């Protein structure tokens, strides 16, 4: 325990920012890159989680437990979002018999 908490101070906060920005851009790229709706939902989860890790890192470095609670709330919202998103996916599969995101373009323009 002591060993771990002394090790964090050796890692600069910049490296956490770099890691989370990298993960967020990979998720953004995946949303634009793929046509499969389920992969797009997973990339959104990836972006959620990169932001969560960054908030937790800031909270640990500033010694403020409110950040940890905020991460918890973001997890709550993400769980609700996944439930609704996956049910939309199931409905889409039932109605158009495909998970191709390009078929759902009636609201696009």
């Amino acid at each position: 325990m002591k060993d771990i908490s002394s090790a964090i101070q050796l890692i600069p906060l910049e490296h956490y920012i770099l890691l989370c920005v990298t993960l967020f851009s990979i998720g953004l790229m995946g949303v634009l890159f793929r046509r499969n709706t389920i992969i797009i939902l997973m990339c959104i989860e990836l972006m959620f989680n990169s932001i969560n890790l960054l908030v937790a890192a800031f909270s640990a470095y500033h010694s403020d437990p409110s950040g940890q609670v905020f991460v918890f709330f973001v997890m709550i919202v993400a769980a609700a979002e996944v439930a609704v998103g996956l049910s939309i996916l199931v409905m889409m599969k039932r109605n158009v018999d495909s998970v191709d995101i390009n078929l759902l373009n009636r609201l696009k323009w």
Partner: protein
Amino acid sequence: MVFLFYFLSAIMILTALFVVFSKNPVDSVIYLIICFIAMAGQYILLNSQFLAVVHVIVYTGAIMVLFLFVIMLLNLNKEIILQKSKVTRISAVVTGGIFFLVMVAATRLTLEIHPRYAFDSKIGLVSEVGKTLFHEFLLPFEISSVLFISAMIGAVMFGKKDV
């Protein structure tokens, strides 16, 4: 210990790339699970044990299993050759790269402003997080139950055959 941070970061970035680029959706889910477990390791390194446990239970245990179940029920586990056009794919990669560059450039200027606070190793423990959650954030915590029940009703409504 410092080595562990960079090791976990490398695993996370590699598996995140595999999530985007692998052909089979089941492979993507497995890679995302590996990424999330590495992220739980990062939480433990930050000494926020509550978040690490909740992350493993909620994400790896519930959400990713839900994804796997949907893939299994809808029979999506075949390799899909269907891809976006080449121009769209290249522009997606360029967009991600440009976003990365802009964010790195934007954060680079602000880094020196942050003062270092005294490190408190207790803030991530369950007792501290619970105290904060039930003292300062009691009302949002209760309201989130309304969010959950609306999400549940919405999922059931979407799942019904004839709406």
